[in-house]
């Protein structure tokens, strides 16, 4: 009896919503359309992504909502634990009845969510989890699964193209010998393995040494740095976290290691990194930099709106990614004009969205997955305390400083 | 042969050192079947160490322990308990999270390998023998005498052939001590050989067939109490300690 009542009520609500939709398209009203986002809220990446999502929701609703109905993003914390991440999907699906799943951060958590996601097979657009070995292949057959963050190997592939283009413009830049200092966890090791497979294909040499990230209680890099110094690389890259950034540079300076190119690839940077004199000339990989606001309107809009809304600067690229995440799904539904899942998925595949990370987001096939969003990260460089974009050249905000300035000449 | 059969436990040149300190040196003792042997000596003479070595808490540094004709020097404590060597402790060691009956049961359960119902029966019998009542009381509510009796009962529930009582009379009144002595005599009556460490000489005099005097880890004298108590060396050892 109860069930029937609920179903009837739902039908009436849908009917009501339909009538409301036909009658008055603006502003958003009626029964909300819900997206469910799973993010680690205790971490700054998840916290800022969730805020950026709320920002997008606010804008979308102000502009008429989704199908004229208000959009709601229900956010669930995964606590960076697999089981909590999976339970969050169950909650969003059954308690909140969300239409689509968005969000995402760590691959480790996402691995445990794959079975639940498969169970619901709702449109899922993920902004995190870049580890191809454990995510890409298992999700290859799922038409409803969209992955926006570039896979680990795509990132590495992007760097190859990027550095080649930079070197073509500046013949001083040498790329023959690389040394990778990588953190010993999943993030660093998978990254290093990508370099080990792709670098020799370019005829470039690569070697590496692991270290324990400060995030895991490490913070001693001198052994890895000394090995790098002995190797005399053209470029030294470290795959670690934000907590490793400055201590790593301080220790590099300490042992007198200043390669022609020094690159970092943490997912975020400490807030005050740019203030340190050691930061000057450090190259980095990332999806996004505040300086993009100089060359991209969407970026500028996002930057201003986020600052205004939350009184803080977006410090990680997961903020613009979260913002993009909501827009992409909302746009697809609005384009289709209904919640028909197959059509919405088709529309998602057709996505053309000018995202705040710079590029226009389109969906292409990656190695195994049909629905891959971004395919590369950017090459950036710290200059006078600001991250400038060096590559892709379309978004260039500065010329590369090369070689990396000596420690005592800054 | 006859002699051997008469002796249930004996030590041969038993020594025990702790981190270079000597606690027992070359101790030779014999415990005869059905006898009550007293072990006396000033504090620190090695009495408790002797019991600890005999029951297997520590292995001897040198020497052998022969029990019923077999060398048991290398056997661990729980095996010695199973083959019939039981003891009580100088400072009572009740198992605080168990009741009175359960305390007594442990011996029957593990040394005799009885099932729980059998052990309950056995323990109740032993407690009855010892005059213990209210068997479901937690040990925290027991009197000093009851705890002492409980310790004896726990030892008896292992069906021992030898019972070693370490200062059983300490901390109980003289009337209670008389009651305890009666019980000990009854236990001997069941054919159990008993080894008593005691400071209360009245008890030693009344109870024992024979005493061994230890001093500085050595055997100082041996014989019936009446004889030994007049031994000048023994008197000196005690007085020396007092002086």
């Amino acid at each position, binding site marked *: 009896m109860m069930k029937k009542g609920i179903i009837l009520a739902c039908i009436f609500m849908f009917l009501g919503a339909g009538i409301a939709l036909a009658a008055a398209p603006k502003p958003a009203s009626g029964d909300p359309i819900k997206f469910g986002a799973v993010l680690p809220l205790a971490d700054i990446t998840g916290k800022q992504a969730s805020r950026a999502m709320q920002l997008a929701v606010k804008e979308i609703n102000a502009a008429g909502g989704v199908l004229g109905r208000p959009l709601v993003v229900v956010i669930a914390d995964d606590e960076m634990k697999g089981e909590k991440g999976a339970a969050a999907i169950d909650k969003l699906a059954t308690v909140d009845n969300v239409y689509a799943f968005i969000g995402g951060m760590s691959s480790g958590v996402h691995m445990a969510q794959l079975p639940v996601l498969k169970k619901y097979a709702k449109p899922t657009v993920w902004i995190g989890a870049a580890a191809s070995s454990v995510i890409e*292949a298992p999700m290859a057959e799922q038409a409803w699964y969209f992955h926006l963050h570039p896979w680990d190997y795509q990132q590495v592939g992007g760097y190859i193209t990027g550095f080649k283009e930079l070197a073509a413009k500046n013949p001083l830049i040498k790329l023959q010998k690389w040394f990778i200092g990588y953190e010993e966890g999943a993030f660093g090791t998978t990254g290093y393995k990508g370099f080990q497979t792709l670098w020799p294909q370019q005829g470039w040499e690569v070697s590496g040494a692991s270290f324990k990230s400060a995030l895991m209680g490490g913070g001693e890099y001198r052994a890895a740095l000394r090995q790098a110094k002995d190797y005399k690389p053209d470029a030294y890259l470290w795959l670690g976290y934000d907590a490793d950034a400055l201590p790593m540079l301080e220790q590099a300076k300490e042992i007198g290691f200043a390669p022609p190119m020094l690159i970092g690839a943490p997912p975020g940077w400490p807030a005050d990194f740019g203030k340190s004199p050691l930061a000057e000339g450090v190259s980095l990989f990332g999806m996004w930099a505040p300086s993009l606001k100089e060359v991209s309107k969407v970026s500028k809009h996002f930057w201003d709106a986020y600052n205004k809304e939350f009184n803080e600067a977006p410090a990680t690229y997961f903020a613009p990614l979260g913002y993009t995440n909501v827009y992409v799904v909302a746009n697809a539904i609005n384009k289709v004009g209904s919640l028909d899942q197959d059509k919405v998925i088709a529309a998602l595949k057709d996505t053309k969205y000018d995202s705040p990370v710079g590029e226009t987001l389109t969906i292409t096939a990656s190695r195994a997955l049909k629905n891959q969003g971004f395919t590369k990260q950017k090459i950036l460089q710290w200059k006078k305390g600001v991250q400038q974009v060096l590559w892709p050249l379309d978004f260039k905000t500065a010329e590369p400083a090369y070689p990396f300035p000596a420690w005592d000449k800054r | 042969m006859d002699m051997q059969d008469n002796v249930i436990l004996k030590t041969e040149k038993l020594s025990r050192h702790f981190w270079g300190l000597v606690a027992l040196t070359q101790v030779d003792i014999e415990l005869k079947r059905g006898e009550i042997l007293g072990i006396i000596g000033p504090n620190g003479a090695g009495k408790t160490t002797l019991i600890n070595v005999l029951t297997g808490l520590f292995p001897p540094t040198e020497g052998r322990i022969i029990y019923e004709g077999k060398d048991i020097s290398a056997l661990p404590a729980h095996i010695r308990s199973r083959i019939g060597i039981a003891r009580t402790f100088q400072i009572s060691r009740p198992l605080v999270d168990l009741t009175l009956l359960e305390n007594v049961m442990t011996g029957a359960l593990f040394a005799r390998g009885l099932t729980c119902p059998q052990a309950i029966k056995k323990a109740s019998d032993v407690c009855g023998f010892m005059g213990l009542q209210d068997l479901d009381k937690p040990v925290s509510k027991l009197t000093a005498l009851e705890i002492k009796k409980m310790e004896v009962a726990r030892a008896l529930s292992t069906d021992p052939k030898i019972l070693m009582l370490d200062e059983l009379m300490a901390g109980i009144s003289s009337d209670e001590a008389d009651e305890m002595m009666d019980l000990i005599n009854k236990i001997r009556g069941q054919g159990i050989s008993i080894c008593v460490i005691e400071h209360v000489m009245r008890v030693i005099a009344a109870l024992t067939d024979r005493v061994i005097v230890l001093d500085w880890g050595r055997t100082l004298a041996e014989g019936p109490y009446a004889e030994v108590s007049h031994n000048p060396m023994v008197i000196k050892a005690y007085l020396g300690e007092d002086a």
Partner: protein
Amino acid sequence: MKIWKAFVIAALFLAAASLPFYTGTYLLHTIYIIMMYMSLAISWDMLLRAGQLSFGIAGLFGIGGYAATMLQVFTNINPLICILFGAIMAGLISLLIGLATLRLRGIYFAIITLAMAEIFRVIIRNLPDTWTGGAMGIVLNNAIFNGDVKQTYWLVFGILLITIVLSEVFNKSRIHFAITSIRNDEIVAMSSGIDIFKWLVVIFVITSTLQGLVGAAYTEIYGSVNPDANFSVHYSLLPLAMALLGGIRSTWGPVIGAIVLGLAGEYLKLLMPYGYLIIYGLIIILVILFLPDGIMGLIKKLTQKK
């Protein structure tokens, strides 16, 4: 009295077993997560009853998970067999560790168990990718029962039942007397004919097998393993907190503690998305300060007064 007790237990059992018929997916999922932690908490407590403190739940949890997953990957046999295999492997490994270390006591044994968990993690992370998936881990083709929540619930409930039954056996049989003697006074225990080392090894192996069982079920349910997640220290600490909160050395203490902390975590998260863990920490502090014997201690006090 006894009939009453049996009736209550039967009613509880039926209610728990039939939960999937009238509970939503999310609640069911939350409950079986809590049940997994509950099993870990009870098994941890079972070792504690013998006087040994373990910080190594995560290690055995992870070993069980890895063993199950690797068997699944290499043979693709029935996941239930893999779960069993995971449990057995955890048991075997704990047997070796127990034989080597169970002469230690107190924090020395505790540290060894902690170190053991870390050592497993480092070894698994450094093994070739083709074996353990290295630092990234392994994803299975599918979760057990294709992710069906009801059957998953029954699986976890079954594991919890096994744990509870074993825990009750620990409390009601001769094992109870052995471990209580060992905990209270090892010298008395020896003198009562208890082979302490043997008992400790047996109990360590049983509780470790249970922890491996939960870990193996966990990986089959979520279809994946990776060294950082499956050996995460929170699998050691959270069950410990649950058991202490509920009241140690009983079956129902850890059960209550797991329910309280598990549900509190889940609801606080809804009330206070950012930083609810601070409340969680405060709950722990307040309970220790005001209910030193845990919630079970409070219940006992209240019922004794009547």
